[in-house]
């Protein structure tokens, strides 16, 4: 099985600082892949590279729609310096070559932010409609037809509201649809941000610390919500999270970063018992790490 997202030799330098160093991993379709590591390990930098907010210094990030594109074609595309290849339902995108809005629109990678970025002065419903901007803009005839009141914009907007309603019900906020997003409690804002990202119909959803600041009950709801997204939608999840119990519970695959370098990768069980991971999290000295490595 080929991976949905294949990150190869990703390096991101900020001046002299190497935030991410030669990172390679794969995220598979239908999986929840978690990116974990201590503070400052470079997790969010990886996210920003994948979603196009940063242009990586080196490396390739290939995102596949369907499995119809071969490795040879990927290499050819890379050499040619092109951004993407589309053949029917199958497509291949080189994310490092795309600006962030095209990563979201064409490659269909949606994301949330560590510090919530909702449109706080707009209603909950408006937030979800803005996420459907591109199809709606098309339906409004690039504004011209919509302005004149011809074409199917009204119908498209009704459909968009239906979709928003579906997600509002999923996150239990249907009663607050007409309230400003900034008025919602913190936990609800987190859920709304995820729902907003889902309204873009992503194939890959990148969640940056979705459980940060949530109480145990809200964390449970969040776990269920992420599980529901994976089960009922064609969306794979890439997750940054510090809450280990949540990560271990829902992830299929873990990638552990420390100082921008991948130190471990695998299923929750293998990673949990990896001495390097334990060392990184508990903060032992180099000597002890070396001793453990010799022992292994």
């Amino acid at each position, binding site marked *: 099985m080929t991976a949905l997202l294949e990150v190869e030799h990703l390096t991101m330098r900020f001046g002299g600082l190497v935030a991410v160093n030669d990172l390679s991993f794969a995220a598979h379709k239908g999986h929840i892949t978690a990116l974990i590591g201590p503070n400052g390990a470079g997790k969010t930098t990886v996210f920003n590279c994948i979603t196009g*907010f940063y242009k990586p210094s080196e490396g390739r990030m290939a995102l596949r729609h369907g499995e119809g594109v071969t490795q040879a074609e990927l290499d050819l595309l890379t050499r040619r310096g092109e951004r993407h290849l589309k053949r029917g339902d199958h497509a291949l995108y080189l994310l490092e070559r795309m600006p962030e809005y095209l990563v*979201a629109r064409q490659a269909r990678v949606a994301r949330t932010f560590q510090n919530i970025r909702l*449109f706080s002065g*707009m*209603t909950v419903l*408006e937030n979800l409609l803005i996420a459907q*901007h591109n199809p709606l803009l098309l339906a*409004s005839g690039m504004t011209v037809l919509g302005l004149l009141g011809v074409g199917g914009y009204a119908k498209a907007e009704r459909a968009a509201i239906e979709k928003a309603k579906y997600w509002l019900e999923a996150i239990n906020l249907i009663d607050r649809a007409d309230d400003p997003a900034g008025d919602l409690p913190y936990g609800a804002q987190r859920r709304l941000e995820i729902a907003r990202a889902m309204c873009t119909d992503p194939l890959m959803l990148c969640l940056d610390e979705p459980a940060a600041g949530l109480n145990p009950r809200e964390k449970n709801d969040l776990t269920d919500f992420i599980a529901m997204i994976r089960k009922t939608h064609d969306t794979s999840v890439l997750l940054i999270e510090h809450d280990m119990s949540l990560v271990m519970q829902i992830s299929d695959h873990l990638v552990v970063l420390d100082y921008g370098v991948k130190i471990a990768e695998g299923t929750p069980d293998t990673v949990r018992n990896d001495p390097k991971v334990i060392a990184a999290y508990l903060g032992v000295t180099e000597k002890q790490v070396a001793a453990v490595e010799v022992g292994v």
Partner: protein
Amino acid sequence: MADGKPAGVNYVKALRDAIFAACVAFAILLPMVGFRTVQDMSNALILETRFPLFAIFVGLFAVTAFLNTAFFVPWREARARQVKVRESGKISHFLSKYFAPFALGFVLVYPALALWITGAGGSLKWIDNFGIQILIYVMLGFGLNIVVGLAGLLDLGYVAFYAVGAYSYALLAKTFGFSFYALLPLAGILAAFWGVLLGFPVLRLRGDYLAIVTLAFGEIIRLVLINWIPVTNGYAGISGVPRPSFFGIPFNANEDGFAATFGLPPSPIYRTIFLYYLILALVLLTAFVTMRLRRLPIGRAWEALREDEIACRSLGIDTTKTKLTAFAIGAMFAGFAGSFFAARQGFISPETFTFMESATIVAIVVLGGMGSQIGVAIAAAVMVGGMELLRELDFLKEIFGRDFDPAQYRMLLFGFAMVVIMIWKPRGLVSTREPSVFLKERKTISRDLVKEGHG
């Protein structure tokens, strides 16, 4: 005061404030009001003192400060304690439900009202200086509202597009003889083109930097108009700009003129009334288009851009194009207003398109409440109409002496009024936001949550 009992009037504190205010007024106004330079018969400059007037001014400040501290501040605090919870949407609801239809009706019958009250001769001033002038600024305010109020991009050079529209019409109409109705859209398109042209270099700028570059752009356009003499005729401006006709019938005293055609006595009032309704139609068109745009994806994207640009990009919105459309459409309305202005005035010169104009339009949008059309319309009426009304302050001569010229103090009063409004309503007259779409109930959104945009 914490126990909620009304405290007695604190005269000592009020007196102290009054003395302080008098001192400040003394220091500031002594050189400004106390002395004046005048030219005598032989053109020599002599210094004249105006101490009685100066004393009245200082006294006014002292009394105002005294009244403020002694009565107004305690009254306001008492009221704030009483009314803890205030419906934030009340005013906006009232405005949209009752005030807007009333205002619309009023502007529709305004020329008739002016004619009826002041007669054909007197109404000219009221329709032209007040009606048309205010409506031009309402239109400019609506246009800038798209850029500043909705998209959150602070544009201090908006008058440049107004100038582009005016000069486009004046030059094309004089050179090629095209009619006003053909050139109106063209002037709008040209202004929109310049809007995009300005948009490109400033796309990456935000906040203060954006404001400075747009300010510079406004000045560049003005300087080009001054110095490109072969085309624009420099400071002298362009005179004899063709006036709009009544759909082909010119407004003149000839036999094929408007008055003769309809069998009316010749009078300049017909043209003025026609121009009034023309600009009113343009204003309503602008308002209608803006209202529709707000409910379309592009309008929502503008507001989202004001709220959080990074979140917009993460949702696949091309912020470059979104900003450019905001600049272009805002500039287009300024272009319409500009060509109307040139056609109404018959004469344009770079003097009209100074930074002061941009500042006035920005002030209208900010005072009105960013994003609110009713607020902008009221603010335009108050600011422009108020400035005109201040010309009529002859009764002040009774107070300050016969050689006192009230018109000279317009800017002072104007600045004072702005300070008062900004203290009273820091987020503008209409400080709530109407959502563009709703599921069950349209609730207005408090301005505290709405961001102002960072450019």
